[in-house]
């Protein structure tokens, strides 16, 4: 009975959505979009691109034009990490038992791989304004490197306090850079550094700086969440 009810509601919703989608006068057909109608049109202006200086337009929007949204988004991630830490709580914590003993090869190999993954993440973060990538995927790759260490060694505990400090410092410097924009230029998070040539590694003003901070913050937050999931309260 309950199953039938849920099935009927989802079926009705699906039919309505597909009918709306199929009506091309209400909703533009797939791929048939005129960018002149969209607000994105102005991001392609030559003056705008030279003012922001980021070759990757997605990065220009995420950090440049809509940096304040990104600050709020990073805050949401911070609050959810805080909530996870709050729920798991507990003062005395021990590692979750994975029921296996790592041998010598696994330990050495995972340490070498950790370095390679870390270098990849640094490359992705620093080229965020030139190629696809940036602070969000780069930070997630840092967290995956930490996850590898956790999986390869059943005794490993990372320095959680260090992660917390790193996260706080990165978030505060983000806000301080925004306030510097308010003081040195005209608005919060406004660019106050020289832009340089579009396409160079050192270009785009404050965008690479902010993306590095976002990468550190996202990486340390997700690594903290992984640590919370792999520890449990010491049962008496």
């Amino acid at each position: 009975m309950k199953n039938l009810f849920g099935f009927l509601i989802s079926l009705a919703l699906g039919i309505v959505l597909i009918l709306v989608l199929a009506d091309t006068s209400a909703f533009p057909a797939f791929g048939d979009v005129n960018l002149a109608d969209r607000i994105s049109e102005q991001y392609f202006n030559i003056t705008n691109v030279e003012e922001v200086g980021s070759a990757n337009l997605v990065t220009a929007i995420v950090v440049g034009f809509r940096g304040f949204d990104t600050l709020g988004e990073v805050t949401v991630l911070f609050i959810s990490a805080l909530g996870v830490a709050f729920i798991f709580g507990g003062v005395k914590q021990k590692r979750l038992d994975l029921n296996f003993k790592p041998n010598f090869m696994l330990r050495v190999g995972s340490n070498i791989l950790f370095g390679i993954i870390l270098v990849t993440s640094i490359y992705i973060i620093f080229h965020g304004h030139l190629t696809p990538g940036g602070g969000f995927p780069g930070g997630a790759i840092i967290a995956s490197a930490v996850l590898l260490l956790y999986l390869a060694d059943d005794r490993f505990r990372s320095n959680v306090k260090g992660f917390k400090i790193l996260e706080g410092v990165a978030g505060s410097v983000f806000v301080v850079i925004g306030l510097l924009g308010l003081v040195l230029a005209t608005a919060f998070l406004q660019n106050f550094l020289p832009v340089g040539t579009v396409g160079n590694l050192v270009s785009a003003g404050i965008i690479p700086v902010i993306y590095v901070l976002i990468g550190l913050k996202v990486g340390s937050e997700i690594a903290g969440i992984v640590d919370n999931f792999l520890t449990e309260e010491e049962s008496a």
Partner: protein
Amino acid sequence: MIQYAAIILFVFGLYGLFTNRNVIKMIVSLNIMEIGLNIFIVSIGYVNGGAIAPIISSTQDLGLIYVDPLPQALVLTAIVIGVGTTALGLAIAKSIYKTYQTFDLDEMGESA
């Protein structure tokens, strides 16, 4: 074509949320809904005909046609928020298990 698949994916997730009584399965259904919506939002910005990824190599390239970068920027942050909410949901599921020794919502009511 992929737009319809995304919509049906969203509806599948909703159906899973209605019918499953297991907390972990409900979080999986939420994730399926999220993936469907992300694909749909990105697909709004797709432009036919010589559209290339929104990366310019120099300011002379600006005459070309690009896909709309704004939905991509929105989805980029939405995915990262998604992992935060999923982690919070799983943490709540784990503490539910600690109290009731089950993930099933119906069994939970009986044992309480």
